[in-house]
Each structure stands twice: as C-alpha cells, then as structure tokens.
C-alpha cells in the first residue's frame, strides 16, 4: 500500500480566547480540534465538510502548518511536520499550496496578476518564471495578456482562477481548497469545479476540499470527512455518505440543502 500523502494522528489544536483574557497572565484556551485521525492518499480528493464552528478551516490551516497544533502529529510525505520550525518548513511549502475563499482579499490589489502568480516561484528559486506563469494561466483557461492586469480589473470568477493558477504554478503535490466556490455565482462555480476536476487528472494533484455545501462535494470528492465541533463525526466514500449518512450532523447537513426541485420534501 502506497504511503499516504498526509497521515494525521490525534490532532489537537487550542487557541487562546482573547475575549476572556485577564489583565495579567495567559488567556484561557478554546479547543478547536479535539483529536482528529485520518489519512489523505495520493491522488485523492478529500472533502472536509461541517457547519460553521466545526473546525474545518482550522484543520485546513493546520495541515499546511499555518498554525501550530497543540497536540498529535501530522506527517506529510512521511516527514513529521507537526513541530517543524519555519526554516525547515519553507522548502516543503512549494509542495503544499492553498486556494482561498474570497477572490477579493486573496490577491494583493496592488500587484499585477503576473507578479502574484510569480511570487511563490521566485521564493523557491524556480527558473523560467515567465514561462511557468504563462503555463499556469493557460492551465486555468485565462489568456496570457491577463498577467499585466490588476485584480480589480477582473471578474470574481477570473480572480478565483488566478488564485488557482498561483497555487498550481510551483507544481505542488497537494492543494488545500478553502471554500473556494462559496462566494461565486452558479456558472462560475461550475466552471471552477470542472477546472479543478481536469487539473486533478492532468497534474496528478491531491486535494483537500473544504466546504459547508455538500452538493459541490458530491461531484468532486472521492471521500468525505464530516466534522462536528472539532471531531470527525463521519468518514466515508462519497457515494456511501450520500446514500446512507450515519451521523446526525451529516443528515442535518444533507437535509438542509435546497435542491432545485419544487417537489423535494424539505420541511
């Protein structure tokens, strides 16, 4: 059995509650992740779903070591990255990327698209930067001329595709997609999801797809983790999850979805 890309064991994360901080001394901590264990296999598209407050966004950022866990272990490609210092993590960062939800705030408004995509490339000492930027733009279906524009000159869907181009340009193994279609129109959403499907196939990517909307997860993901209050409530293959949801929170999430069908029982 091939080694999983990510192996997470008993992951815990607590953050200080600054709202209740006493004058002297540390703030009390709130547990956001309470002992999660799962693997992400190479080439897999894993859906991570849950309501707000379930910890899914925090889990995503912990996987990328943007926050340091307070307990448990995370192994990426066999290496234990749980407590690795920033300097040791830096070379790994080219292999794990992130795409954000809000296309408005995820692109620096004062840099041109080309510079935004080239950023990570320059940091990791890639060569032929211009060629790679053009390639990335082509992969996401944007014309190379767009590299000279500023983010505010593009539509929401285009901006989101620039975010995707930035993530795939360094040739990563793994991409975390943090609610990337939640702010998009129905047609842009469909385009972006189809694009991702194609990229996973063509570039051999592994994805973790965070979403509060189970409907988009159905098509894209092979396996789904359902989070509830910092714990894994259910983990199953997508088809199984939709056919026979086990956990109460999964059923609640499914029942809440308004299908475009007036006859759906939705009381």
């Amino acid at each position: 059995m091939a080694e999983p890309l990510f192996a997470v064991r008993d992951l815990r994360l607590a953050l200080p509650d600054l709202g209740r901080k006493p004058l002297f001394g540390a703030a009390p901590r709130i547990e956001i992740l309470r002992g999660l264990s799962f693997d992400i296999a190479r080439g897999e598209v894993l859906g991570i779903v849950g309501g707000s407050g379930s910890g899914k966004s925090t889990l995503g950022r912990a996987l990328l070591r943007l926050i340091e866990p307070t307990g448990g272990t995370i192994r990426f490609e066999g290496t234990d990255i749980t407590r690795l210092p920033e300097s040791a993590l830096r070379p790994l960062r080219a292999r794990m990327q992130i795409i954000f939800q809000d296309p408005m705030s995820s692109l620096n408004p004062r840099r041109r698209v080309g510079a935004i995509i080239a950023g990570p490339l320059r940091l990791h000492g890639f060569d032929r930067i211009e060629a790679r930027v053009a390639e990335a733009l082509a992969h996401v279906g944007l014309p190379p001329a767009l590299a000279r524009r500023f983010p505010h000159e593009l539509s929401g869907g285009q901006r989101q595709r620039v975010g995707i181009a930035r993530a795939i340009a360094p040739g990563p193994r793994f991409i975390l997609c943090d609610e990337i279609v939640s702010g998009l129109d129905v047609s842009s959403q469909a385009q972006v999801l189809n694009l991702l499907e194609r990229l996973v196939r063509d570039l051999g990517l592994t994805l973790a797809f965070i979403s509060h909307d189970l409907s988009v997860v159905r098509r894209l993901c092979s396996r789904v983790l359902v989070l509830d209050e910092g714990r894994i409530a259910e983990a199953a293959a997508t088809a199984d999850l939709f056919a026979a949801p086990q956990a109460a929170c999964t059923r609640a999430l499914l029942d809440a979805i308004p299908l475009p069908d007036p006859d759906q029982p939705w009381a």
Partner: protein
Amino acid sequence: MSYLVIRDLSARLKGDGTRLLRGVSLTVAAGEVRGLVGESGAGKSMIGRAVLGILPRAVELTGGEIRLGGTDLLALPQAERRRRVGAACALIPQDPMTALNPVRRIGPQITDPLVDILGWDRARAERRAREVLAETRLPDPDRVMRAYPHELSGGQRQRCLIAAAFVAEPKLIVADEPTTALDVTVQKQILRLIAEMQARHGTALLFVTHDLGVVSKVCQSLTVLYAGRVIEDTTVRAFFRAPAHPYSAALLAATPRYTDPEGSLTPVPEAVLAAVRAEVAAADAGVAGAEAARHG
C-alpha cells in the same frame, strides 16, 4: 390583482451611461412570492432597490414605471414617494453582520422607524416589536430587545432583521439575498421562517437570489435576468419542469444537485452565452433605433 407592477424599467450609470436595466417588466400579486434570479451584475438587486427608492447615487432611472397598489411611484414627488414606500414596503437585507448598527440595542433599531416615521407611540411600538420577535422563534424576546448586535449569532441577527421587516405589516417585502451569508443549516431555518411569516401575514415578497435551489422552495413564480434584461418569466412549477429559454436551462444545469452529480454543475456553454448576449445587443439596437426614429 397585482400589487407591484414594474413596466419597462430602464436604468443606467450616470458616469458613462452603461445600461444596468433594460426595459424590465414584472408583477407581484398581493401575497405572492416572486423570485428574482440572475448572476451577479444581472441587475436583480438593482430592481429591488429601485422599488424601495434606494438606488446608489451613481445610478439613474431612464424610463418606465413602478406602480405600487396602482400609483406610479416615479410620478410622485420625492417626499410623498418616500412616505408611501416607507408605509407599505420593507427590506430584508443580505448581510446580518453589517445591516444592524453595532452601537445601538436591537429594540430601538426596530421601534424607531415605527415611532419616528409612522408616528406610533413608543409603548405600542415596543409591544409590537416583542410580538414579532416572538414570531421569529427567538427565545426570550425581551433579552433580545435589550441586546447589542454583537451579542447575537448571525442567524439570530437575521431573525431580528426579518422581524424588523414584518413589524409594520408591510404589503411588499424585498428580500435581497437574505440567506447568502448564512450557513446551510441556518439558511434552511431562515427560509422556512420567511415562508411561514409571509404566509401568515399575506405579504407580497420579491425574493432576490442567485440560488435556484432556494427559489424552488420559497417562490411561486420567478423572473430570470441577464444583463438587466428579463430572459424568462414563469411559474416555479413550469420552470423546473422545463425552462423555456436556453440560458435559464443552462443556469439550471449548472446548479449543484447531489442526486444527479453528472447532470449538474455543468458550466454554461459559450454558445448559450453568446446567444443571450446577442439577444441583449439586438434589444439595445432596437431601443436606440426607436429613439432615433422619435427624434428624427
């Protein structure tokens, strides 16, 4: 009888004359729930704002009429129009986080318009506010009246905003994407609440959204917009059985449907987009031609 009749409404940006609304016509009968559907930039929010008289300063209406209960609002003087709209209409806004004033308690935010604009006395206004808050199933309406917005969750705030909309028994409510900013489980509760209250009070509802799934649950009829132009106008049943226009059919095919993963989430084909754009351009040319003929 239609309570709201919009006929041939057109609007554009003052700066460069870009058309935002292109001869929009639609009606909402008393007690009816009509969905206003379209992508961003289609003009659906703009129509709601035009009815309520809260268009952005950079936008101007260039033609058409908006009849509320028979009277053309656009023909009235400003003050009279504001009075009528204030008495008969209300808005459920999109973002519960920013729609409430963070430095005032909830109670006054609901009762002030009743007292200041409609001339109610404060005791009656407060009683009524408490009643409506109870209707929205908020536990402990008294505590909510005294609370500040930041003490409530997003869903609770949206309930307050819904209460504020229904409190003066308006004849028409414009709901501007009221659940877009909410979690899917909270969305369901809020939609059901809106549907319930609408049915109980018999209020006409113009429901602006980009989500066809939501439309199928709450609305009886819908109008589909593209680039400020009405593409389709029909009942919800007829639409979901078989949309008449290729663009609306494409929108439906793009809407996620977990019961049919392969048949949904299909991007709108370029050909369909090109066709609908050509339609809009042709209509623009027609309008320009008619204007030229009038002046020539």
